[in-house]
């Protein structure tokens, strides 16, 4: 592989990684603070993408569509919290899995009914539609660079909020001992609601920025949900820093693995076999990574202190 191609794959990996982080951040916060396992988090990513599509067709502007989508994603997340999730906080994990599984089935089907089963796409916004030269022969789309930037900016913002503000302090305290936080007079239900709403909005945001690059289709959130789980296991459940590190790691390894695996296996096996083994190995890489990390650090790379 040429150096240029390698560089492009690295950037693609970073871009995928920051998007994974946006999804994993909400998932890990909701689990860390509320002990709530939300399989429907992937669907919220899908909802974000579909909202971007719908609003773009209504307003004609990507930026207004993006803003409206995030607001709607937030409202939608809060509505789900109010209707379903808040009744499940005290229940065991199995109940949470099943109820959120039901929500997945419903929303995937609803997306199919409203928008049809075919894949949709939206154009890259004009302002970011160009590509810039990175080296003499390498040009890279501005939009992808912008998503990397947006992901890193959100990561920084979240880090500041969680570690340096009063709400962040309450979130960390709530993750450790919710009863004590509640006993000290903090409205823990409202705190849960804020965390949940922000998580849903982040997933929706990831959906919005993914919409111009990836296909919008029913069930698009299901596979990324699993990868987000892998990310938060590797990073340590409840840890924002862990989710960031693991998101980038998983994004890079998955993207590079897909282009390198066939080549690497071709040096060991005959080409016809390598064509089969390579892709299989590539899609297994992140799970192998997860298994390996669990052997040495069962609580993940950067476990949140005191979190369940």
């Amino acid at each position, binding site marked *: 592989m040429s150096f240029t191609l390698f560089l492009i794959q690295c950037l693609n990996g970073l871009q995928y990684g920051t998007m994974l982080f946006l999804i994993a951040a909400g998932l890990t916060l909701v689990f860390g603070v509320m002990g709530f396992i939300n399989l429907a988090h992937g669907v919220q990513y899908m909802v974000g993408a579909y909202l971007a599509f719908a609003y773009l067709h209504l307003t004609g502007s990507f930026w207004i569509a993006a803003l409206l989508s995030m607001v709607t994603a937030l409202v939608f997340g809060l509505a789900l919290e109010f209707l379903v999730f808040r009744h499940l906080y005290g*229940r065991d994990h199995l109940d949470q*899995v*099943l*109820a959120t599984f039901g929500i997945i*089935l419903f929303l995937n089907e609803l997306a199919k009914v409203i928008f049809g089963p075919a894949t949709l796409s939206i154009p890259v916004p004009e302002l970011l539609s160009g590509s810039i030269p990175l080296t003499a022969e390498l040009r890279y789309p501005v939009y992808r660079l912008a998503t990397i930037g947006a992901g890193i900016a959100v990561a920084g913002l979240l880090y500041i909020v969680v570690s340096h503000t009063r709400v962040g302090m309450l979130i960390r305290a709530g993750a450790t001992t919710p009863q004590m936080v509640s006993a000290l007079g903090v409205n823990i239900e409202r705190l849960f609601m804020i965390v949940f709403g922000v998580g849903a909005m982040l997933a929706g945001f990831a959906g919005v920025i993914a919409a111009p690059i990836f296909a919008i289709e029913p069930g698009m959130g299901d596979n990324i949900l699993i990868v987000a789980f892998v990310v938060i296991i590797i990073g340590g459940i409840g840890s924002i820093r862990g989710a960031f590190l693991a998101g980038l790691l998983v994004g890079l390894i998955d993207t590079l693995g897909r282009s390198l695996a066939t080549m690497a296996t071709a040096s060991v096996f005959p080409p016809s076999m390598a064509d089969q083994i390579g892709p299989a190995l590539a899609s297994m890489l992140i799970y192998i990574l997860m298994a390996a990390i669990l052997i040495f650090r069962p609580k993940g790379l950067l476990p949140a202190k005191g979190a369940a």
Partner: protein
Amino acid sequence: MRDRSLLVAGGIFALLLIAPGVLDATGQAYLTGLLMKAMLLAIAAMALDLLVGQGGMISLGHSAFVGIGAYVLAIGLAAGIENILVLLAIALAVAGSFALVTGALALRTSGVYFLMITLAFGQMAYFTLTSLAAYGGDDGLTLWSLATLFGSNVAQNAGHIYLVILAVLVATWWLVHRIGQSRFGRVLRAARDNPERAAVMGFSVFRYRLTAYVIAGMIASVAGLLTAQQNEFVSPALATWQHSGDLLVILVVGGLGSRNGALLGALFIVAAQEALGAVLPEWRLIYGPLLVGVVLFAKGGLNSLLAPGTAGPGR
């Protein structure tokens, strides 16, 4: 027979035994296909109940073993192995080894970590199956020849696969029932309720759980093998995590950790999906919220309606 759950199970098995004849006579033969689907789901769900109901280990990767069983049949047939007993032995060996390795890793953790790790291993198996280009890849593979029992077609649609599935169902029910009553089952439930106490009493919780995980995986692979043989088709869709979710739904609707929960749940869910599907092609729009409603408002499942007070061993 003081226990009502034994009567319920016996009644269901008897009904299942006479069902094909009755359905044939009334011209509703297509329903036997649905019954077979329900029975195959029940076998896999019973195995899962050993983990979830008795062991307290919520696995979202159980369908991987169903997929393994199905693909052992497909690949074995392609390699010229026709005897279903040989294929069964291979399926049990492959599923057992996969369960031993992934279980040993997954059981280093518990609770939500366990759930997510089984999910990840399940996805790993799924992606491996989709990458088997020689056996259909994403699209799956139609089985042009089927496995035989020493040359006879008794375990095929042309023969008596219905009875074979029913026999495996009864055997699985009996096996899980015996495990539940055995010392092994009691230790498993003790570890579910309080792992520290079980450990202090001198039991290696890890070993008991791993054994249960391997047994459950092996039983699920039998269900997968029979599913492939009955559908005459294999596809990676059998191993998706949504399929694992369906199995959990069956357990909870039927009644977790109860003797007949998996059986009742599978029959009910297959009937409900079919009925909803007949009313509305987009039946998931009803099914999804229904699921949420069941979780929020109905506890104990169907089993507690049919046999109140016999919520199964240790519950």
